[in-house]
């Protein structure tokens, strides 16, 4: 069975651009949740989020960030077509470029598969204004002002198109849209392609950007966000937890068959050792309280990795900081890991960066690389008061030095999708 090596990592996070900024932020133990700057949120009940520190995106800025000429035909096409209005597209491009360059990939990897999770399509409200009259959208009327080619809503796979275009990829593409578990599933799917021999190289990961009036408004009305309009809005596993904070960003991995990576002299950063996925089949609105199906996903991941629970040195939890998720996850870990479930170090980075929705699983897998790359486990920012309903060994806000061989990362999505991925040290 082929081993799945990680040879490249690219990150865009609320801490900034690049994996270094991400890891520096996690190591510092501070939060990147701060007042929203990309639109006027001053009248929204929630005004804080884990926003990537770039309020406006245009061709010139993206060109500089990607190291491209601003007159590049791709950039021109994306801007003219209205693509750049969807922030997650830029995050996907930047993370993809970073991972690709770090892995030393070139045209030789042009047939790499792409396994990308993307968040909800963004309805572009400004497109409606020219044709919105008398309380209705006048669909058939050609507006006076010319509109971009991407009108009214962005296609579900727009980010994948852009990444393929940027890197010249022509292999298979899978676009995952399974809500909050999508990022982890995208990486697991990519690893599966390599293990089975269907692909030698896969660019896998996720991008999402819901910090906009629709996304923020919808989450506020759902009651998922913390009602406290403050940087410490999200308190994973803390007794005082009361909701999540939104985040945005992207994380992409170059996954490669180990023998191929070694043959071309690529540096192996880690391995994707195993994965498991299940469906709660309970409710769209809430996870299964007993955590049984989440536990099943974790057990499948352990079996896939061929390791016992005690081989795990760290668990990067889904840890949303909502009243329902955290205790359900705690139960899942105890059921799946047995006594070790209450002892293995656990942390969630959502207090630091927010909940990146479809991208959360991928960014948290990137955080799971921190022990391999920096010898330390990220802490749980804003966790100070443990909850008896979550009897886990939750790490406090500071990062912890640790020598870890295997990391488990959990992602549990709306609708009851459960994903567990296990990483291994290089």
């Amino acid at each position: 069975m082929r081993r799945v090596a990680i040879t490249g990592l690219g990150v865009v996070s609320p801490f900034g651009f690049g994996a270094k900024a991400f890891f520096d932020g996690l190591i510092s133990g501070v939060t990147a949740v701060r007042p929203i700057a990309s639109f006027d949120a001053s009248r929204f009940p929630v005004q804080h989020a884990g926003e990537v520190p770039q309020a406006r995106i245009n061709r010139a800025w993206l060109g500089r960030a990607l190291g491209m000429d601003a007159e590049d035909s791709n950039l021109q096409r994306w801007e003219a077509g209205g693509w750049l209005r969807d922030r997650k597209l830029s995050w996907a491009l930047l993370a993809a470029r970073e991972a690709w360059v770090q892995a030393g990939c070139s045209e030789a990897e042009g047939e790499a598969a792409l396994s990308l999770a993307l968040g909800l399509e963004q309805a572009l409200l400004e497109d409606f204004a020219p044709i919105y009259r008398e309380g209705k959208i006048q669909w058939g009327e050609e507006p006076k002002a010319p509109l971009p080619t991407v009108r009214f809503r962005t296609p579900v796979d727009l980010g994948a198109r852009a990444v393929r275009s940027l890197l010249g990829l022509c292999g298979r593409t899978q676009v995952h849209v399974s809500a909050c578990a999508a990022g982890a599933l995208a990486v697991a799917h990519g690893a599966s392609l390599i293990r089975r021999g269907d692909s030698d190289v896969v660019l896998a990961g996720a991008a999402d950007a819901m910090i906009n009036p629709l996304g923020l408004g919808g989450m506020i009305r759902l009651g998922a966000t913390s009602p406290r309009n403050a940087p410490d809005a999200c308190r994973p596993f803390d007794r005082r937890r009361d909701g999540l904070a939104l985040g945005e960003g992207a994380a992409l991995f170059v996954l490669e068959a180990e023998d191929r990576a070694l043959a071309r002299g690529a540096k192996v950063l880690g391995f994707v050792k195993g994965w498991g996925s299940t469906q709660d089949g309970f409710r769209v609105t809430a996870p299964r309280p007993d955590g049984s199906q989440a536990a099943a996903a974790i057990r499948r991941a352990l079996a896939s990795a061929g390791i016992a629970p005690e081989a795990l040195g760290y668990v990067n939890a889904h840890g949303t900081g909502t009243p329902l998720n955290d205790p359900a996850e705690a139960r899942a870990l105890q059921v799946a890991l047995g006594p070790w479930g209450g002892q293995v170090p656990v942390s969630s980075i959502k207090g630091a960066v927010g909940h990146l929705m479809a991208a959360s699983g991928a960014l948290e897998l990137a955080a799971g690389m921190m022990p391999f790359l920096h010898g330390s486990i990220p802490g749980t920012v804003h966790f100070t008061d443990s909850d008896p309903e979550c009897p886990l060994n939750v790490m406090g806000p500071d990062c912890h030095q640790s020598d870890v061989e295997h990391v488990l990362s959990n992602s549990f999505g709306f609708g009851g999708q459960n994903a567990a991925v296990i990483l291994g040290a290089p």
Partner: protein
Amino acid sequence: MKAALTGWAWRTPLGPDPEAVLERLLAGETAAAHHRHLAGAPFEVALGGAITAPPAPSKHQRFLRRMGLYALDCGKEAFLKAGIKGGPRVGVFLGYGGLRAHWNDMMPALEHQQEDGQDAWDRGFRLFHPFWMLQHLSNNAQALLAMELGARGEGITCGGANAGAQALGAAQRALSEGTLDAALVVAHDTLLEPETLVELGSRAQGAIRGESFMAPYGGGGSGFLPGEAAVALVLERPAGCAGRALGFLHAADGADGSREEPGQSVLAAVVERALDGVDCDVVDGAARGWMELDGIERRTLASILGEGTPLTATQAAFGQLGAAAAPAQALALVLAMRRGVLPPIASLSRIELGPLRPLTKAEPSNARCALVVSTGAPGLVGAVRVEVA
């Protein structure tokens, strides 16, 4: 490893009953008509293939709209037909072209908004239904099917114009890896939403504009008929399905960089993966309806399958089905082969000269293996090899 097809259902512009739809395909009927459910809307793209019967009433109408409800109907029907039970080794794989924001729900929030977005919350976002976000989750149909059917195993929701082929491929992999014993694959898409029709009408090689419909592969080159469908297929490992399998499938998918339509090399690569060394007797083509695209497709397929291979195009009858194309075409061809008759290309009277043999009439055939091909923007390909059981 190919997968056995043991359950099936669909909602198509030619109807919901598989055998009745087959009769209409064999009769050369097309679903092309004015968009009845968008009556009065003056689109440049005037014709489409629409599903006419409404979806069954459902308690899940809070979380699913029209196409999602059709997907739910199909999924349950196909599952029942397969005669299997849910459990930890049964999974749901969903492919869809893309969610539509439900503008009616949003009107209260949009009505008083300003173009610059100032004061958006006070101007209407505070009026959103509390479940508005949940109603727009990408994976609602997958989640609800898993609930209804007790399917607790792995699964995914994937998106894009070839998402049905993506979902078929992912389900096949799970079956071959042994993580599942059965997979329900559901795909749905509609190209008849207002914003899609606006976009198709403005695209260079998009949908037919105006009133006249010309069949693909006829040299007229005026575009494709937009359509819609929901399809559900139950797949199992072939061993143990004796007597229950309608046929066998092997799916592949791919993408050609940033091109709007896939080029020859990517199309060929995906087709070769679907065939996996097996010869096919007939091909159901992508039917894009533009001379250049049809020509590329015919030359590519002929180089692999042979110049004289019969060519049909069920999407000339249904309309282009987007994410639902690959599963719908697969089901149509396996039904046709079992009947021993290949369907003609609807409305095709004059054939553009070139490789492959486009069918203008229903043709008796001993075909046992078909290749179905679908493409969609941008540069996406789905291909399925279908064999009769």
